[in-house]
């Protein structure tokens, strides 16, 4: 291990079990960029950490890190409950540890809606967590229309967006490596794609996925709990 290299913990917090996720894709991209810059990386999958009971080892790595990067999807306008569990437990674990460092913290949040700004409150939660832990929150990357990243990242119309996204991820790497003190604003990434078409394709996608499960279009509108109307 290079003793001089900055140690970074990448915290992927997609609640998905085994399926590919946009958060996984973004974490991979960050990891590749960081390896190029010779940063030491410790990667955490929050679901596995919690379910497999390995939070203690992961929390120890977080306590020793120079930087923490949280990568997660927006869930009902803020952090998934799973990530909140992880943060609450980490806070309790590290509260009285004398070996805590002034760690830099970053957030990369993606949402299915096209408006990148919807992620703002989630970034503020990570900032609040950083304040409570006496860490140095730096900035967040807020991605709208994240549904396009997994399936269409190679498409020609995505080139501009992918370049912007790549540059924003590089900015995290630069910030960790060079430790500038100047304030950095959150970065918004919006897909270069018409919103109406995004909605149309998304809506059609639900019908086609339901059909693969043997359902008809009308089945998607079921009201299983409706007992009465008033």
């Amino acid at each position, binding site marked *: 291990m290079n003793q001089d290299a900055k140690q970074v913990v990448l915290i992927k917090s997609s609640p998905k079990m085994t399926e590919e996720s946009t958060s996984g894709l973004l974490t991979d991209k960050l990891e590749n960029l960081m390896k190029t810059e010779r940063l030491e990386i410790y990667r955490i999958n929050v679901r596995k950490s919690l379910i497999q009971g390995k939070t203690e080892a992961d929390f120890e790595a977080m306590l020793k890190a120079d930087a923490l990067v949280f990568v997660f999807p927006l869930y009902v306008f803020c952090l*998934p*409950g799973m990530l*909140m569990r992880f943060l609450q437990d980490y806070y309790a674990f590290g509260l009285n540890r004398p070996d805590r460092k002034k760690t830099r913290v970053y957030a990369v949040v993606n949402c299915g809606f096209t408006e990148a700004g919807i992620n703002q409150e989630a970034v503020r939660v990570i900032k609040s967590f950083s304040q409570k832990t006496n860490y140095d929150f730096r900035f967040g990357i807020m991605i709208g229309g994240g549904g396009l990243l997994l399936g269409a990242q190679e498409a020609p119309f995505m080139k501009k967006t992918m370049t912007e996204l790549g540059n924003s991820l590089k900015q995290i790497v630069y910030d960790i490596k060079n430790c500038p003190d100047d304030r950095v604003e959150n970065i918004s990434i919006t897909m270069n794609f018409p919103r109406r078409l995004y909605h149309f394709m998304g*809506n059609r996608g639900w019908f086609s996925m339901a059909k693969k499960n043997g359902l008809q279009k009308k089945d*998607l509108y079921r009201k299983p*709990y409706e007992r009465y109307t008033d």
Partner: protein
Amino acid sequence: MQAILISDKEYQTEAYKRLNQLVTIFLTEKGMKLTETQLDRNDLAFCKGCFGCWIKKPGECVISDAMAQINHGFINSQLAIYLCPVIFGQFSSNIKNALDRCIPNILPFFETRPDGSTMHPARYRSYPKQIIIGYGDDLSEEDRNLFIDITKKHRRNVEVLIYQGNDAEISQALSQMELKKAGDEL
């Protein structure tokens, strides 16, 4: 009139106990039949992002635990009140799990609201009035504002209050609210 009360068993502080008592007395005096659920850390599984509640078993979570009963109670109540610890300006994990797993109650599609924002459409014709009451010791102004923004900024059918030990303030705010179903605006 039916009401559900959802709270976090992990944060039953003195403030919580007073708040719970205050809300329970208020609802009872209003003639509401109250069902209370106290959520502990292992009571609900985390949402697994499978979308099964939209494309496999529409309207129902595919995970078998207490959430099915909570969602059933929610849809068939006039009022849903959450007593919620404010952690880092957000809902605590136990409460957030319950909110994450409410998504069977809406449709998967995207729609554009009159103000231009995106939302998922309603699955049901009517939803309970939702009141989220945050509590916590020594909450900063920043966290209080964040909690209000998270709760209200993107939703049209939720009321938010923050309890800081002032019983009269909460009682007065509750007494000024219409405690009935809120229609299908989300």
